[in-house]
């Protein structure tokens, strides 16, 4: 039994680490590809593999591979007066903390397996004596109802911590120190300045990050990330109950990642490359990698707390249940393991979509000035997050006092948001599938861009450009 649990833990760790590693590598490609689309140019296409005289380019997908090879084989040197220990420790800290943060993020609902036997329980549908769904289960994901039959819970999270979100804060706080000592140990004035900027920027937005979650926590009544997702599955997604907190958290998370528009610590026109100017070879590669891994973990947190995590609208532990208030429209019993695996796919899919949104943000916005950054963080986002807490508290009290009519209304409203989400997801997936099989013409790509706008306004200038 213990060996099985150990094996399960190892497999879960591998799933999370592999997902973050691979998605981060693919994101470096997505970042370049997206930038080329936005800037209306041909994307990364230099990395080529020749097989039997044929050139394989794969739309630039070979670039992350080439990058990795180059990181490993580049000459790795450090400035003579650098602090050798801290210089080497900083990239390990920056990357290790991002990875460790993932440990407490749940990627699926708890699977109830009969003593870890996959068969014949795989097809087992949890139903009552008359074939109805067991919606009397107290909390989705608990196996309490079946424990006397020897059903064992398999939680799809590496470490279901009781302190949940606090652990995430604790880990993201260590990233500040990684950046700070990287800059300090480099013996470079630009690095040191970048490090100080990085530290004070991350510190400023860390507060907003924490405060925006207090409101969400008041609604969910828990700090455990898996219970947060269960609340969203039963009621409504966090983005509907805490819309302001969602935007505050998103902005703060992008600022913590130190990506455009918050990339002042590494603003290349001011500070060369910020706190990792002096890093070469694999050590630079680790900082580069940590940035993309942070995009992935930030997206995971956003999905878990505000976008329903593994939850799909109307999918419950033992099947599909379309219900508005007390009126049930549809009940379909589906094997519990299927629903859970579908949820796992949904979680990873949502994470990929949010990552793509972050890439889009990066290539759409200009960089802030440092005083604007500080003003935004301290004088706009922080008071807004406090006001959010206040309003949430007052509304909560009002609903509590209003009685059952109001809570019934909210119940139906929550179910309506689920329906909205279901429709939006169906539409987007449908558009995606249609887009994948449709023919893409170059003109079609150009229409939304500046060149297209210029063409519609009467064409671009034909005179030679001035230097």
């Amino acid at each position, binding site marked *: 039994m213990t060996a099985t649990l150990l094996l399960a833990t190892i497999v879960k*760790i591998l799933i999370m680490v592999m997902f973050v590693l691979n998605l981060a590598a693919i994101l470096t490609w997505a970042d370049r590809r997206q930038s080329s689309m936005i800037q209306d140019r041909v994307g990364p296409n230099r990395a080529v593999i020749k097989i039997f005289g044929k050139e394989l380019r794969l739309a630039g997908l070979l670039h992350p591979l080439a990058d990795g090879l180059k990181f490993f084989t580049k000459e*790795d040197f450090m400035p003579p007066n650098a602090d050798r220990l801290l210089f080497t420790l900083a990239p390990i800290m920056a990357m290790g903390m991002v990875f460790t943060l993932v440990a407490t993020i749940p990627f699926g609902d708890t699977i109830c397996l009969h003593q870890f036997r996959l068969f014949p329980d795989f097809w087992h549908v949890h139903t009552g004596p008359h074939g109805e769904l067991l919606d009397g289960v107290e909390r989705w994901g608990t196996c309490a109802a079946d424990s006397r039959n020897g059903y064992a819970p398999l939680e799809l999270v590496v470490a279901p911590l009781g302190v949940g979100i606090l652990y995430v804060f604790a880990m993201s706080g260590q990233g500040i120190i990684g950046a700070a000592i990287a800059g300090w140990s480099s013996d470079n004035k630009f690095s040191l300045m970048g490090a100080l900027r990085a530290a004070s920027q991350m510190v400023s937005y860390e507060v907003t990050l924490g405060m925006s979650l207090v409101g969400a926590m008041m609604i969910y009544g828990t700090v455990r990330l898996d219970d947060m997702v269960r609340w969203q599955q039963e009621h409504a997604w966090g983005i509907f109950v805490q819309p302001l907190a969602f935007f505050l958290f998103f902005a703060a998370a992008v600022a913590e990642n130190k990506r455009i528009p918050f990339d002042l610590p590494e603003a290349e026109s001011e500070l060369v490359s910020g706190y990792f100017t002096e890093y070469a070879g694999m050590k630079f590669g680790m900082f580069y990698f940590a940035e993309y891994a942070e995009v992935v973990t930030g997206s995971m947190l956003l999905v878990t707390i505000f976008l329903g995590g593994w939850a799909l609208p109307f999918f419950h532990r033992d099947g599909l249940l379309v219900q508005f208030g007390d009126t049930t429209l549809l009940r379909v019993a589906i094997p519990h393991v299927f629903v859970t695996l579908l949820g796992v796919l949904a979680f990873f899919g949502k994470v990929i979509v949010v990552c793509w949104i972050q890439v889009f943000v990066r290539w759409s916005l200009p960089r802030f000035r440092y*005083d604007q950054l500080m003003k935004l963080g301290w004088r706009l986002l922080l008071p807004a997050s406090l006001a959010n807490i206040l309003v949430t508290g007052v509304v909560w009290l009002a609903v509590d006092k209003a009685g059952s009519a109001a809570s019934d209304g909210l119940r139906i409203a929550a179910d309506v948001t689920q329906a909205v989400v279901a429709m939006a997801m169906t539409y987007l997936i449908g558009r995606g599938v249609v887009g994948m099989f449709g023919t893409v013409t170059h003109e079609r790509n150009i229409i939304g861009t500046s060149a297209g706008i210029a063409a519609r306004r009467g064409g671009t200038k034909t005179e030679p450009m001035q230097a």
Partner: protein
Amino acid sequence: MQSPWLSVLSFLVVSTLVGLGMIGAGRVLRVRARHDSPLKVRPYECGEEPTGPAWMQFHPRYYLVALVFVLFDVEAVFLLPWGVVQRELGPAGVGAALVFVAVLMLGWLYAVRKEALKWQ
């Protein structure tokens, strides 16, 4: 002790090993220069000759930001458990948190008034 913290510990070990492994692999595979030049390892400061050590005195406003951060970090840490138990506490709990936040916002107001958080 089937503690989830054991999993966290193993995750920490795995991620440290990944980091060390990357640096180690880089050390094995990296190219070594045949002729090393002192110019190459010199800190890159946009082609300027680096003068003196990089470590210099910084403006105190960074320190002020960190100070105000400590204030709000502690506030966040107190408000997180409040958010969890808030529905059991009822109106009294909201009142308690209001007083707490109001007191801390006085500090924030002072900092804003003295323009400690303003960059120029």
